[in-house]
């Protein structure tokens, strides 16, 4: 603003001068009237400046047009005539630069007659000559005024840098919007004016273009970010839930989404590498016994009840292990399906392990900066506990309640150090509670074992009812539904701190689920062993059936018998498919139970409470049934265990992952709807980040536990003799050996044989242990160093505190003569003049935001400016050596001259 006003003042002065010398008046008018004509020549000239100071600008901006040949003749003529005038002009320039007003006035009088002579000439010529004259005068003047222009140039450069910084850091200034706008406009104008002129950007047009592109780029980036956000599936849904229920409930949905992503990858792996090749290139259905429904089951094979149990056609489909043939290569691609099956089974676990550990590590990295939280417990609670995102009155009510309780908790924590009342009773109750819960766990484990045993008997019988067939699933689901509330009831006995209580609760539910799962697995293993022991007899039966079929009498010896129809061939029980079917059923029933629980427990309850409240004797919404809360821990644990089952089952039922993807997809939408429609926000909100890693840890544990049985079956159980890709082999992993022997060159086979040597494997394992030990000790020492550093910082803070307090007392004593603007400490410690305080403090805030970069870069900017000056001065050193030199470097000369102009 200020320099604009100044410019306007000089415009008046320029006009006066123009009246005195009429020639320059004409050119001044010209420049004013036809800016469109001139602009091409002076692309780098700022329009605002042209209007403001016509006289000066003529001098400064004249040269770029002077390079054209027809002008040269006129220039030479004019040069001879105006030689004296030029010198006067240069003198005037210097004088004006130094603001010697008396000298300027005298020069103006001298100048007037010489200009008048030129009035007879055509205007065009006058204009050209004047331009040339001024450019040369400019060139000569720079030599005499170089010290001045250099420092001015540096000053302008510095200012330009300052303005740039200002624009960059505008966002972090605590100014009102109107001031921000004004400052921004001013800074931008300033930049537009000088940036081109200083030769920093190559002219205004390029600068403008660059600015335009920068703006476009920023906009594009923002749009792209928006686009990316929109591409994240269910982002809006989750944000919606987050704003209603807080981040803890949202964390479950984020976890669900993450799980969906992982499953999608697993699904792609299994479908792309196993199922699709088999369907496209493998032998079709009905060609061999393992791909055909046996004759006995044929009539019922398409019934819905049979299909629902994954029997019949479902059992003999590519969804299960038994369907795959043990042919080494299939199709014209010679795809090694058994090998691919094995490798996919391994890589499913490998990928899952990798992704879980990676996300755990990234979570850890984010949460390392929580070390300070113990120093400021109350402060953080007071100033950061309110979540400004909350936009729902119920959530707000809960937030108020939780803040109050957390304050109370902190107060209790603070006071609680000495008082411990009735330790013995508490201990007794805790032991009792643990005893009860262990009883519950054992009981549930035994119940499952019993039920699984019974179901094995049922499976041998005919005509079993629906309940008897699904007993295992029903019992497991019921246990999962009723045990957690029971645990919670028992846990009230213990009188733990709620935070610790929650961990205990999670651990117990985890143990329950895990126990159930492993009982189920053990029972399944019994079943598998039984089937394996029967396998030998079945193998003999099959062999003899085929033998008799081909050798029986009554057929003509010359005519070869047609092969036995695959449906009639007796076959083994194929334990792998049986295991796969168990997992499949468990997954489906788990899904259904979850949905029904949500529908009955949440939705119907919500409907009942909502609509029966009009005609009920007490307040249903506030009183007993109320609305359901979203059970985060139960849901997350359910999700984790479901995933464990998927990991275990996917080797025996490749289609399981597909079912799981569908399940996660539907449960995403269904649960989102259920939460929004029929749940109320949680009473206790726990930190999303921390619990997230806790869940990840549980997931890792489950992954490891589900890896064990699969690895056991692969390494130590013989595969079925007549179904699956590994049939006929002694162990499943033999497929690798086979591939190495047959398909790889012999020397590779030898290398693999060497690698498999125990003499190599044991040292390798030892080496790994050593590496683990080493890394562990390194991390321990690092964390110790970290703790020590933290302690040091703490100690420093204490010292600083005491130092400050001493100082503040001292300054309070003699505060009369302390200078307010002296140092930061003083300004804050003096008690009077609060208005000054706020100003200076806001300034310190600005300085902090700009940081030390401002001072260092300011030092840097001086250097290129001075370098630039050397170049630009070159034409000015020898003014009489001809006009060609300045023309050869139009950019440099102009930039040099521009820089010479006094800034405003």
């Amino acid at each position, binding site marked *: 603003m200020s320099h604009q006003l100044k410019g306007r003042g000089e415009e008046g002065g320029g006009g006066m001068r123009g009246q005195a010398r009429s020639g320059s008046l004409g050119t001044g008018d010209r420049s004013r009237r036809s800016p469109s004509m001139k602009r091409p020549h002076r692309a780098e000239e700022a329009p605002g400046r042209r209007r403001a100071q016509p006289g000066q600008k003529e001098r400064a901006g004249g040269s770029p047009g002077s390079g054209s040949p027809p002008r040269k003749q006129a220039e030479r003529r004019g040069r001879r005539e105006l030689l004296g005038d030029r010198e006067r002009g240069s003198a005037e320039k210097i004088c004006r630069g130094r603001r010697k007003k008396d000298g300027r006035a005298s020069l103006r009088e001298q100048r007037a007659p010489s200009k008048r002579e030129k009035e007879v000439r055509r205007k065009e010529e006058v204009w050209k000559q004047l331009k040339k004259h001024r450019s040369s005068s400019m060139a000569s003047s720079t030599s005499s005024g170089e010290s001045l222009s250099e420092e001015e140039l540096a000053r302008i450069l510095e200012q330009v840098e300052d303005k740039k910084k200002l624009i960059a850091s505008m*966002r*972090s*200034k*605590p100014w*009102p*919007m*109107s001031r921000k*706008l004004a400052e921004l406009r001013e800074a931008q104008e300033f930049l537009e004016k000088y940036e081109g002129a200083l030769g920093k950007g190559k002219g205004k047009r390029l600068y403008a273009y660059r600015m335009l592109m920068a703006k476009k780029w920023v906009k594009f980036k923002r749009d792209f970010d*928006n686009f990316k*956000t*929109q591409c994240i599936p269910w*982002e*809006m849904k989750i*944000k919606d839930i987050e*704003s209603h229920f807080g*981040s803890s409930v949202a964390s479950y949905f984020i976890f669900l989404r993450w799980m969906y992503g992982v499953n999608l990858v697993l699904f792609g792996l299994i479908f792309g590498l196993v199922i699709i090749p088999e369907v496209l290139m493998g032998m079709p259905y009905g060609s061999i016994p393992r791909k055909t429904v046996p004759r006995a089951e044929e009539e019922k094979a398409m019934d819905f009840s049979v299909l629902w149990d994954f029997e019949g056609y479902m059992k003999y489909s590519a969804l299960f292990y038994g369907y795959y043939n043990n042919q080494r290569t299939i199709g014209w691609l010679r795809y090694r399906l058994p090998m691919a099956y094995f490798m996919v089974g391994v890589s499913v676990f490998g990928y899952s392990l990798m992704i879980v550990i990676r996300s755990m590590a990234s979570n850890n990295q984010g949460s390392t900066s*929580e070390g300070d*939280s113990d*120093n*400021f*417990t*109350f*402060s*953080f609670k*007071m*100033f*950061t*506990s*309110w*979540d*400004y*995102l*909350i*936009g*729902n*009155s119920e959530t*707000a009510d809960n937030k*108020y309640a939780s*803040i*109050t309780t957390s*304050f*109370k908790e902190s*107060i209790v924590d*603070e006071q609680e150090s000495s008082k411990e009342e009735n330790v013995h009773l508490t201990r007794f109750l805790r032991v009792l509670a643990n005893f009860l819960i262990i009883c519950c766990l054992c009981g549930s484990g035994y119940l499952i074992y019993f039920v699984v045993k019974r179901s094995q008997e049922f499976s041998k019988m005919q005509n079993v009812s629906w309940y008897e067939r699904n007993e295992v699933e029903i019992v497991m689901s019921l246990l999962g539904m009723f045990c957690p509330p029971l645990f919670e009831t028992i846990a009230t006995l213990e009188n733990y701190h709620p935070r610790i209580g929650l961990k205990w609760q999670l651990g117990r539910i985890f143990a329950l689920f895990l126990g159930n799962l492993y009982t189920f697995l053990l029972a399944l293993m019994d079943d598998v062993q039984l089937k394996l022991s029967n396998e030998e007899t079945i193998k003999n039966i099959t062999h003899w059936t085929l033998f008799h079929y081909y050798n029986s009498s009554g057929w003509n010896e010359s005519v070869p018998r047609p092969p036995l129809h695959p449906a009639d061939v007796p076959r083994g029980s194929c334990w792998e498919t049986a295991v796969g079917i168990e997992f499949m059923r468990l997954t489906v029933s788990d899904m259904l139970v979850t949905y029904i629980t949500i529908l009955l427990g949440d939705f119907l309850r919500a409907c009942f409470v909502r609509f029966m409240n009009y005609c009920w004797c007490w307040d249903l919404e506030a009183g007993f049934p109320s609305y359901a809360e979203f059970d985060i821990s139960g849901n997350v644990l359910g999700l984790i265990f479901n995933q464990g089952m998927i990991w275990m089952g996917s080797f025996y039922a490749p289609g399981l992952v597909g079912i799981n993807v569908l399940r996660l997809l539907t449960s995403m939408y269904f649960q989102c709807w259920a939460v929004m429609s029929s749940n109320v926000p949680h009473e206790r909100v726990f930190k999303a980040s921390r619990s997230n890693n806790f869940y990840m840890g549980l997931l890792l544990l489950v992954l490891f536990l589900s890896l064990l049985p699969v690895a056991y079956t692969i390494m130590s159980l013989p595969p079925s003799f007549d179904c699956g890709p590994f049939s006929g082999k002694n162990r499943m992993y033999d497929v690798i050996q086979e591939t190495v022997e047959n398909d790889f060159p012999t020397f590779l086979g030898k290398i693999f044989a060497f690698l498999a040597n125990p003499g190599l494997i044991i040292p390798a394992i030892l080496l790994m242990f050593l590496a683990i030990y080493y890394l562990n000790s390194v991390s321990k020492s690092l964390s110790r160093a970290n703790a020590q550093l933290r302690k040091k910082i703490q100690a420093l803070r204490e010292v*600083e*505190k005491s130092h*400050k*307090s001493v*100082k*503040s007392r001292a300054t309070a004593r003699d505060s009369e003569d302390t200078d307010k603007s002296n140092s930061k400490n003083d300004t*804050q*410690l003096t008690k009077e003049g*609060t208005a000054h*305080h*706020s100003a200076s*403090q*806001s300034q*310190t*805030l600005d300085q902090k*935001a700009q940081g030390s970069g401002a001072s260092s870069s300011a030092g840097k900017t001086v250097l290129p400016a001075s370098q630039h000056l050397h170049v630009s001065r070159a034409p000015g050193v020898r003014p009489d050596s001809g006009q060609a030199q300045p023309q050869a470097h139009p950019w440099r000369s102009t930039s040099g001259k521009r820089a010479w102009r006094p800034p405003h």
Partner: protein
Amino acid sequence: MGNKQTVFTHEQLEAYQDNPFRQRIAQVFSEDGDGHMTLDNFLDMFSVMSEMAPRDLKAYYAFKIYDFNNDDYICAWDLEQTVTKLTRGELSTEEVSLICEKVLDEADGDHDGRLSLEDFQNMILRAPDFLSTFHIRI
């Protein structure tokens, strides 16, 4: 903010009635301090409360919001106001005074019995949740 909503529904406006500091926010950002905002003030508010705003700026305005009597210091009275608003007055006076005492003990760097802007910034910039909670999403 992906959604480009230009007209607020009544429910959405209602939804922001729950913030205990809503009056303070309006007062801090309004020009004359009485809570009536011009368009510029409104823009100011959202530029500060947006997710993109830098930490220091947020800390500065948070300080102003919690400084109830506008004396550029958060004194014990301000802290009491804050606690009362946060808990809807459900704590007893002893508890409130204990909390204020604790906060001053923790965050007051120069032991003058009140929090200056520097003390406040020093404290708030270490808070893990400050940036994630101190913003408004439309």
